[in-house]
């Protein structure tokens, strides 16, 4: 869409209040969804709960293809369809709900930087482990990704997705990394986050922001997802303040559902 059209649409969006029937779409929870998608979806759910905006989670086999950008999750609010955390944050801001209003410019820049860190490090590491590690790809990722489809379409789609992710990894320079190097990167990222968090309840002291939602989404998913090896979870567990951070957010915002 052109800039003018986008501005017009967000004006329209701003005019309407948040409806009761907003829905969030993600792949099937039990059989299909993968680590990286679940992390992104949980981040958005946490953010919306922190804003106090009700949203119903619907699981659809084809949610990846329904999404306008091809990425999970996306929300359907009124007539609008918005995908990924960044645009969703903008969308809710246009409707008057924001978690980062109380921050000054320096803090906001810092928040953006840390969110970039999580996206570039944690999310990429999750994708690497899922699709570039042969053991995980063969045992977990490909079977789960292809579970809703019948043969031979299941094989075709699973391999197509794997090639696509591997090509992307090569393009950003992760193709040559080994699994140990990726685990090291994850540790470093967690260390940076742990240092920033310190003893505070949230990253920017008293109030949660979208950064908290994003970090929670990824770390909680890593801690609770079974992979071929538990090393990834162990690396995260070694930072106790991150563990208590996750537990705190889970208890505050997710206590009514057993996620």
């Amino acid at each position, binding site marked *: *869409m052109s800039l003018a059209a986008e501005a017009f649409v967000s004006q329209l969006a701003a005019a309407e209040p948040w409806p009761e029937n907003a829905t969030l779409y993600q792949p099937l929870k039990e059989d299909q969804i993968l680590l990286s998608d679940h992390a992104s979806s949980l981040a958005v759910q946490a953010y919306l709960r922190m804003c106090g905006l009700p949203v119903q989670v619907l699981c*659809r*086999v*084809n949610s*990846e*293809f*329904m999404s*306008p950008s091809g990425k999970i999750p996306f929300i*359907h609010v009124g*007539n609008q*369809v918005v995908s990924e955390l960044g645009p969703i944050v903008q969308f809710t801001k246009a409707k008057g709900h924001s978690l980062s209003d109380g921050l000054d410019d320096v803090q906001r820049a810092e928040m953006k930087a840390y969110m970039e860190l999580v996206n570039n490090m944690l999310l990429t590491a999750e994708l690497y482990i899922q699709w570039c590690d042969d053991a995980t790809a063969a045992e977990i990722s490909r079977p789960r990704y292809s579970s809703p*489809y*019948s*043969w*031979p*379409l299941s094989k*075709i*789609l699973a391999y197509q997705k794997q090639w696509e992710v591997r090509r992307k990894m090569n393009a950003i320079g992760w193709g040559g990394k080994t699994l140990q190097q990726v685990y090291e990167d994850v540790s470093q990222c967690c260390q940076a986050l742990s240092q920033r968090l310190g003893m505070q309840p949230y990253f920017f002291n008293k109030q949660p922001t979208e950064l908290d939602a994003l970090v929670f989404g990824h770390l909680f998913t890593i801690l609770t997802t079974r992979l071929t090896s538990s090393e990834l979870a162990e690396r995260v567990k070694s930072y106790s303040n991150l563990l208590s951070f996750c537990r705190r957010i889970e208890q505050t915002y997710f206590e009514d559902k057993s996620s």
Partner: protein
Amino acid sequence: CGLSLDPLPMQGPELGIQADDIEAPEVEQEPKQEVLENKNVVVQRVHIDGLGRTKEDLLTYEIAEVFRANNLIDVMRKSHEARQKLLRLGIFRKVEVNIDTSRGEDALPNGLDVTFEVTELRRMTGSYNTMVGNNEGSMVLGLRLPNVFGRAEKLTFQFSYGTKETSYGLSFFKPQPGHFERNVSFNMYKVTGQFPWSSLRETDRGVSAELSFPMWKTNQTLKWEGVWRELGCLGQNASFAIRNESGHSLKSSLSHAMVVDTRNSSILPRKGGLLKIHQELAGYTGGDARFLKEDFEIQLNKTLYWDSVLSASLWGGLLLPFGDAPTCIADRFYLGGPTSIRGFSMYSMGPQSDGDYLGGEAYWAGGLHLYTPLPFRPGRGGFGDLFRTHFFLNAGNLCNLHYGEGPQAHLKKLAECIRWSYGLGIVLRLGNIARLELNYCIPMGVQSGDRICDGIQFGAGIRFL
């Protein structure tokens, strides 16, 4: 051998067998004047000259009848029929018949030799077209290998490369020697389509195997098809109902079709009728889609006084899904447009969401036409004969069915809210292949959500209601 871009059209001489001339038989002048027509003759030899890669055993069936002729008129007629049979194989560019008296040691006094002089088609023919469509251009390359292994097998490859989409198809056709109407064909294809009336884009990659054979007066076709379908939204403004249909699915189906066609022509017939029944069962040979689909087409034509023709047609179809999954938009029926219910926009009738038409699971459509020659018959005997005026009445309905209500409720649903239209127009016949129409239409019974095209509407196609 190189690829020769031959100006020959993709369809070979088997299309539209028109009346043609037969070579005058050469008969030696007898010194005595004999009434040749009543003379009994025996066909002693039938040759085929000019064969290259064609295997002879294929052709013996086609020419066998000539041996049974026992007088000269019969020989001429059977030779003509054999020539038609040889041409319809699609492997010869030209077939000429030569009837001569027998020569040689065992020649009978009333013996005849019939020789078919054939020119085989080239091993590979090609065609190249450019097409310009809605904001896109494409280049279409066709390659055809007629008579690949010598028994009238045909291999065709078509490739279309466009600014928006690319599609291709490979097809192998093999008739049974001696029974050309019994044939089998294998196809592989990738086809993309854009459907702006539904804001839908569809890419199909499939393989199919098809067996065709005649049975009494009918032509039967059995087919297995496996298709990987990928659906997506066309543009960002697609409705959520269409967005919901995006994604991949696999259809593996068995289908059967029966056709009885007694019309004298498929475009603007003057007499005869057509009955076509088609059913498709998906899901029992694998795949995600599970349904039973039935559709039929009936057409009856009768010539009336003053060279006018009355034509009535009826179409209908039903899609029954198995299990709980809803039907896929790629399997549903669409209705409306210049080739079905005139006066309505292309496929813009029935269930819709935000202006995107979703198709329906059941439909019926009927048409009544009166074709007359152009008033005052301009250009009679020539160009004017290609045009006809027609008066038409079209009606139909398209809806979804909610199963569990029983057949009475379904029939009632189809009978409610009938859309219909009437009008008149001019029809132009393009050879034996297609037809153009320019009509003035008045749509009636329009339901909310339908998009109409009242007034002048233009249509081009092969199959019209």
